[in-house]
């Protein structure tokens, strides 16, 4: 307290001494004293008074001594020495204030840094939390997808197993063969009512197996070809074979085969697989062939064609058609499947005349 009071008075005393010196009309102060006064004024009126009062107090004491020396012996070496010391004390006071200011700056910077770090840390935590949330969502999604995929695979396996089973059934019945990468399912026997295109019950049963077998080839085009024997009018046979092929196409379409993949072709009496001279041969010639093409053998734009103009596998066969069938017992195919030559069963009604 006492110290503070003294600090307050001493600059005043020094100022009084300066005034007295100015009024006295005595010898002018030395350059050293003038410089010291200037430095002291700067110290007591600047930041130093607030930040370094002790330093300013020391400067004031030194200034008082310098003024005293000037008063006692103006211009003397003693005055100059004391003025020099007062100058240094003032400079020390100012530099001390700068040090205090720098320390305050450091503290402020430290606080700012901490705040910045906290903000940084909060942002990082927020970001981490967001990432964790996203990760959880992704994991859940992944798990769901995995479950769906599992189910699909299971379904697919079931469908394949079902198709394999159906194909095996067809193979066992000698109704399935492969030619140049195409799978050909040949159905003969009593498939339609006599002279009509309505599927018999037997035909539906067999086509149900065919539909299951076709499920294994979801991306391959399918051509349904209808054939008749050579009995009756050729034009009528042609139309009948077309209607029958379309009936089969429709059945398959209703049983899950995409309509875009299906094409019906009426072949009439063409491409007999057996002699039309015998009852047994004609029964085999009255048939429907379902051809599963290779993937790149896509059908032409129409889903229903008529006539033998179709680019089906039958067109690639060797000499076929009515002429050859009518010519005698020779068959169009070099190695027909045994089932194709199968005679109607004893309990089957006699093949209708077509």
């Amino acid at each position, binding site marked *: 307290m006492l110290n503070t009071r003294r600090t307050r008075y001493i600059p005043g005393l020094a100022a009084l001494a300066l005034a007295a010196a100015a009024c006295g009309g005595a010898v002018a102060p030395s350059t050293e004293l003038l410089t010291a006064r200037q430095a002291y004024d700067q110290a007591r009126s600047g930041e130093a008074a607030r930040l370094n009062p002790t330093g300013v107090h020391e400067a004031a004491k*030194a200034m008082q001594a310098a003024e005293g020396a000037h008063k006692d012996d103006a211009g003397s070496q003693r005055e100059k020495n004391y003025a020099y010391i007062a100058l*240094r004390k003032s400079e020390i006071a100012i530099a001390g204030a700068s040090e205090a200011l720098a320390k305050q700056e450091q503290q402020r910077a430290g606080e700012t840094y901490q705040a*910045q770090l906290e903000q940084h840390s909060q942002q990082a935590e927020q970001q981490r939390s967001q990432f964790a949330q996203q990760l959880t969502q992704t994991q859940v999604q992944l798990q769901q997808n995995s479950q769906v995929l599992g189910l699909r695979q299971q379904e697919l396996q079931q469908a394949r197993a079902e198709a394999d089973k159906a194909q095996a059934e067809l193979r066992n019945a000698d109704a399935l063969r492969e030619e140049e990468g195409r799978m050909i399912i040949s159905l003969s026997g009593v498939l339609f009512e006599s002279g009509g295109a309505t599927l018999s019950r037997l035909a539906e049963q067999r086509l149900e197996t065919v539909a299951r077998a076709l499920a294994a080839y979801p991306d391959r085009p399918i051509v349904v070809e209808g054939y008749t024997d050579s009995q009756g009018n050729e034009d009528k046979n042609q139309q009948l074979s077309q209607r029958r092929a379309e009936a089969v196409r429709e059945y398959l379409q209703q049983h899950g085969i995409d309509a875009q993949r299906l094409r019906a072709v009426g072949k009439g009496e063409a491409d007999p697989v057996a002699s039309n001279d015998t009852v047994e041969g004609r029964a085999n010639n009255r048939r429907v062939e379902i051809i599963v093409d290779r993937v790149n053998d896509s059908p032409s734009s129409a889903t229903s064609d008529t006539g033998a103009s179709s680019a089906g596998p039958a067109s690639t066969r060797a000499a076929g058609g009515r002429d050859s069938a009518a010519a005698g017992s020779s068959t169009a195919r070099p190695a027909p499947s045994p089932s194709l030559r199968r005679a109607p069963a004893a309990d089957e009604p006699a093949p209708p005349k077509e």
Partner: protein
Amino acid sequence: MRAFEIGIPALFALAACGGAELNQTRATNVQASLIAAEKVGANDQPKAALHLQLAKEQIESAKRLAADGDQVNSDLMLERAKADADLAMQLARTEQEEQSARQAWEKIRELKQEQVQPPQSGG
């Protein structure tokens, strides 16, 4: 032991070899101030180093005055030397603190830059 710890006592020891001796109390005070100034790195800071040099020259002057039998002015010269040594120490300390403050703000600037542009993970 650093050079100044040997050099400064030697500066005063020589004084004892002359005719009249320096005021022992004042000389000790000046010596303490010089050592303190050098310890805080006054020699490494140009302005502080200048005042350190002035202090040393004034010690030499004090010695000469003492040798001439002018004890009053020798004492005053020692007082001047102490004032310069104290100023050298204060300037060195101020410089150190100001440098620390600058470094602290630089750290903040770098941190802000990191926040704006997060460092890329390696790999």
